[in-house]
């Protein structure tokens, strides 16, 4: 049994700050005493240390069990798959980007992977060489190109400034991560219509062997996932409080529950308001938890039922009867 458990987090790059922000929002504040230090602590999880690493090294550290948990990009895990790396949560909700194939905008005749397959043959016949593909994702790029019938290509391994490769001239096309597309456009490149290799975002990974064999590691996983699931679930809902007038609170309840837009998670909470003036009908305060996606529609229904004074507050945490991700993890590990 381990006494200490290590969580590896990105030390720099696009998901470094969003990761510490995400953990803070989950109630998992990261203490880093010194910006130049590579270690820290996560006080909310007893016995957990934090190790700051590059996103690729996070995968390596979890693969060799130096760290038992890590947060990195899904793209990294797909590029460097390892049997000991278990993707525990692949949808942390930040760091979204796409790994895709992009070609020069000037290639007016190329819009799809099928076009690129034809152009690859042109390279062999006209230029007597292979199509050159600049990327830091050679494993996924190779598989994707072959799957689209492109076999005559050479991977040009590159580190940084890949978007400039077709302009500088050391590659013809690129396979790279794209978040907004601005950098592509500024370098006169365009994505192919069917050239998306992977939709990526930040993910939580764990060491399979540590999770299978060590109860301390599993308990750490449970605490992490309870907090993360509660936070991620909470972000999808709002708490809505309205005042409504009715002769009977049951009238309100029946109307609200009958409409899926206002039925809430389990149903409304209805409490009487003790008004200072006498009226024929009573006032009630109704509290509901509604999904953000249908919030406005729900508010419209409430208004149509006579609701006033609509107050909407974000739900910070929503703890369900169990943490679904932890349950899935246990099923994946075949443990109780």
């Amino acid at each position, binding site marked *: 049994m381990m006494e200490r458990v290590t969580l590896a987090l990105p030390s720099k790059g696009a998901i470094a700050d969003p990761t510490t922000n995400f953990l803070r929002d989950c109630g998992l504040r990261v203490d880093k005493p010194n910006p130049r230090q590579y270690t820290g602590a996560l006080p909310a999880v007893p016995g957990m240390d934090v190790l700051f690493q590059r996103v690729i090294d996070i995968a390596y550290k979890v693969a060799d069990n130096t760290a038992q948990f890590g947060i990195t990009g899904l793209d990294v895990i797909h590029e460097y798959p390892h049997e000991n790396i278990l993707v525990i949560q692949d949808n942390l909700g930040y760091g979204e980007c796409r790994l895709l194939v992009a070609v020069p*905008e*000037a290639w007016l005749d190329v819009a799809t992977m099928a076009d690129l397959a034809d152009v690859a043959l042109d390279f062999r016949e006209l230029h007597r060489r292979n199509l*050159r593909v600049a990327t830091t994702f050679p494993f996924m790029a190779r598989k994707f190109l072959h799957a689209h019938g492109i076999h005559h290509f050479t991977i040009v391994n590159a580190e940084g400034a890949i978007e400039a490769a077709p302009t500088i001239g050391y590659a013809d096309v690129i396979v790279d991560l794209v978040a907004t597309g601005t950098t592509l456009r500024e*370098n*006169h490149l365009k994505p192919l219509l069917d050239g998306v290799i992977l939709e990526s975002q930040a993910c939580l990974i764990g060491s399979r062997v540590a999770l299978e064999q060590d109860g301390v590691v599993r308990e750490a996983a449970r605490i992490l996932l309870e907090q993360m699931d509660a936070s991620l679930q909470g972000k999808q809902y709002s708490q809505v409080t309205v005042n409504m007038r009715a002769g009977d609170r049951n009238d309100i309840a029946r109307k609200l529950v009958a409409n899926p837009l206002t039925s809430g998670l389990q149903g409304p909470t209805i409490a009487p308001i003790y008004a200072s003036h006498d009226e024929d009908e009573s006032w009630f305060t109704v509290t509901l938890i509604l999904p953000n996606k249908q919030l406005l529609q729900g508010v419209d229904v409430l208004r149509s039922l006579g609701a006033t004074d609509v107050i909407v507050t974000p739900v910070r945490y929503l703890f369900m009867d169990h943490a679904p991700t932890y349950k899935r993890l246990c099923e994946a590990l075949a443990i109780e």
Partner: protein
Amino acid sequence: MAPRRPRQVQAALGALRSHMSKFGYVPADVPIIQRSDLFLTRAGDQILHKLFTFERHGVSLALRPEFTTPALHRYIADHLYETKTVARWQVAGIIFEDDPADGSTNFERASSGAECIGLAGAAAEAEIIAMAAEGCSALGKPVERIVLGDARLLHAVLSAHNLDVRVQRFVLSHVGALTDPERGADYILERFDAQLAAPSSSLNTDSQDVEEVIRAILVTNERGRAMGGRTQPDIARRLVQRQQRAAQRQPLQDALRLLAHLAKIRTVPSEAIRLIMSFPGAELWDQTLQNWREVIALLDVYGYPESCLQLVPILARDWEYYSGVMFELYDARGSHVAGGGRYDEFARLIGAPCDIPAVGFTYYLDALLHEMPSSSTPHVWTILADHDLAQAVGWAQSLRHKGIPIQINHVDPAGSRELRLNDDGTLSFGDVRYTFAELESLVEAINGKQR
């Protein structure tokens, strides 16, 4: 992939080597490491994504994924074509593939086959087919069915419809879809529209003409300097070619319709030839049909009558690579145990100044050795000697020279006590002690026990 059984594989390779030697095929030495370009030229692209490559000093190298390409390359490098040398080479050993289909890290497997390079005609083809089939019999897996095809028939159909080289190559690489019930000719046409002929979404080519191409070139100027190794004329040329290829859709459709009918033929040679000759324009295939007849007649002499042959005009395998007769061998279980064909035009693709007649085949050892009983291991006798090792070595060498496998051990963990060296230099076998003078008696006793 079947689990590897090294001893069984080695025994099979040895048996095949011996069998092919009877046909005059000598073992050829084929390097394991080659420049990867050599394999990239093999058309059909089937092996490319399986190629195990690595880089040394800026040169891309590959572990051999098959034997045919390096064998032919050696024939070319040695300029044997200049003297019209006929090379009958057998090849055997380990071949390599990256990303194995079973997801394992088992990157290597044994392979065996033969190449007859420098000899044209039906005689070489029948020789290779018969030798391949008899090799299966030598391993206890007699061939039940020989399937014959010919790449020239397909090439003749495509040429007769005046399809350009790229479209022909495209059809060759997709022809397997014709015999796939879920794809068929419509699938090939869809791929043709998407890849070779349809207007790209970036440019409306409905009324494409020279002026529009010029305008397109001007637009590329406005879109920056990122050209990625293509020139504006490259882009303009492809736009024009796509437009021209769109005009090939109808002849392509006609060709595919004819090929789809041909693809349905799968029967005994006499009936298949009759059906093929009933097609309009069948005179284009006279040469192919005559070659088939000659091969079939010779196979009959080799002991493979028409009843075990099947003609399949559109035999879906490596079309771009083969240039003549193609064949597949099946055992009684219907397993595909060997395959090959003629590939005269391949030599040019890997640097020869001319076509070189060549025909070859490969055994599929996984299928061939499937359910084959493991070969028995010869028993290795043990001399237990904890003193006077020189005496023990003397005994061991004498017994080895008499054909008895021997090892010397200092301890006897298995408690076998097969042969024990005694203090007086004699050797005990069972309850009997033998002196050097009684070596023949000892050998007789050991052989008697072995039996």
